């Protein structure tokens, strides 16, 4: 289906992320095996597969939390350049315009909701340490500017009323939303969401579908997500990539994927759905 010999930098103009032959093994077990797909600009792209199929591992390889053994991750940065992310440090990735959430919600319990969201714009802050400790005008202005931006994002996500509450003790669905809000602070080109609908009830899931579409339009970015909820994925995604045991099964529109026999066996044979 994909031509692996394609020149790496030869990325079509409307492609934002292109991963090629991505592979990683843990102690002989191939968690991600020669995975290849690409995501177009402003596309909502779903990655599905049974439990343990290597979806989160693939995310971690793309965002460089794991160093892939083989393969490349080409990304069109927010400056319009195409760069291979492999070999970059995990903290350098967001500067390229790629931001992610985590399966187990990585928020800071001791910080307020708005402070957690503000962490999302960390890379936009430039005031020196001196300016910060003496609260010089530059530091104040910067803080005020991003605080306002964070408030807008929180309003947009319907979290404004709890902005000064601590994150500790918030319900799971709210935590998921806060984490999503945090990704919106850095003008992303691509947002990677690890199980955004986990822990949400039906109406919340429906609302999330809407929000994610709106985010795509408002922020002009592509979205890559992993989700178990098949209905959610088929409703939301433009294209879907199905994997099993780290290997690619099929890429296509939701209808194509649903009709794909390999996908059906993978899900019915070993799936948990």
């Amino acid at each position, binding site marked *: 289906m994909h031509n692996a010999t394609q020149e790496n930098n030869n990325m079509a103009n409307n492609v934002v992320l292109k991963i090629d032959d991505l592979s990683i093994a843990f102690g002989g077990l191939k968690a991600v095996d020669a995975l290849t797909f690409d995501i177009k600009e402003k596309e909502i792209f779903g990655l599905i597969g049974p439990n343990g199929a290597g979806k989160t591992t693939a995310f971690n390889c793309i965002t460089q939390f*794991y160093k892939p053994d083989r393969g490349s991750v080409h990304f069109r940065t927010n400056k319009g350049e195409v760069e291979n992310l492999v070999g970059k440090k995990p903290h350098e990735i967001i500067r390229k315009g790629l931001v992610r959430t985590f399966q187990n919600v990585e928020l800071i319990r001791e910080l307020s909701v708005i402070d957690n969201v503000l962490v999302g714009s960390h890379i936009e802050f430039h005031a020196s340490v001196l300016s910060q400790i003496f609260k010089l005008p530059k530091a104040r202005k910067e803080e005020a500017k991003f605080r306002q931006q964070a408030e807008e994002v929180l309003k947009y996500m319907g979290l404004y009323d709890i902005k000064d509450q601590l994150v500790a003790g918030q319900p799971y669905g709210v935590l998921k939303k806060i984490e999503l809000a945090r990704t919106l602070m850095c003008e992303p080109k691509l947002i990677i969401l690890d199980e955004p609908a986990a822990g949400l009830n039906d109406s919340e899931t429906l609302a999330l579908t809407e929000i994610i579409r709106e985010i795509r339009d408002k922020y002009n970015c592509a979205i890559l997500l992993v989700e178990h909820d098949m209905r959610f994925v088929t409703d939301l995604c433009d294209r879907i990539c199905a994997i099993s045991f780290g290997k690619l099964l099929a890429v296509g529109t939701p209808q194509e994927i649903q009709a794909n026999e390999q996908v059906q066996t993978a899900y019915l044979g070993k799936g948990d759905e």
Partner: protein
Amino acid sequence: MNIFIQILLNSLETGGIYALASLGIILIYRTSNTQNYAQGSLSMFNAFITTFILIKTGLPVGIVAILGMFCAFFVGVLVDRVVISRTLKMHSVSKQIITLGLIMIFLGIAPMIFGTDPLQFPRFLYGSHSVLGATISYNAIVNISVGIIIMLVLFFMLQKSKWGLSVRATASNDVVARMMGIPTPLITMASWAIAAALGTLSALMLAPTTSVNLSMMDGVQVIALLSCVLGGFQTFYGPVVAAYIIGTVSNLLSYYVSSTWSDSILYLLILALILFRPNGLFGKKIVKKV
């Protein structure tokens, strides 16, 4: 040449002392994910107990040493039951700090019970023998061989016995080990007990040259930790081998370079070395789960 052999023989002895202490530290680290900074002060405290037994009973030194190690064993159990067993689920920083609190307790209690004056602990044996032009004291032979025998027995048990299997299972993944029915809290307790006994033995080997005093184990504690750094925290044998290497290099430095600055140079060398081997000489890289 004679001097070189002499240095090597001495190094076997000092290396053995460091190795015993570092084996205790690595045993505790691997089974309860705790950096034990109190290994030295725990050993110092037990050396005081042992010397006290010697003074009160007048039994032969060898027997007193064994009694002392038994006492240490129980002090280790006590420390685990009273404090460590309650910390198992804590953040590793809290655990580290707990052992730092233990240092203060041992350093505070020792002078309360045993007074502030240093005590003398005799050698196990007196007299010496010459080998290849170098002299080695009988006491050194005892120290070297006892240390090596005890460590060999421990390594054999780690590999072959049921206890060893449990320790290794706990070390590689305590959650899975617990699910397999291994009583991990008991394994942690045993590690503290054994570590205390090993540390006490190392303190008793050191005691004839330093006297039994509050700061006798300070240097050993630092070197034992650095042995773990140099040998890597991922294996049991790494720190032991590193301890012998450090013992040798330390003796070479103090003879050929400067006896005053040998330890300082050694520390800097090890710190510089981890730039090139971040996981130690025998360590492996670990992938963190996200």
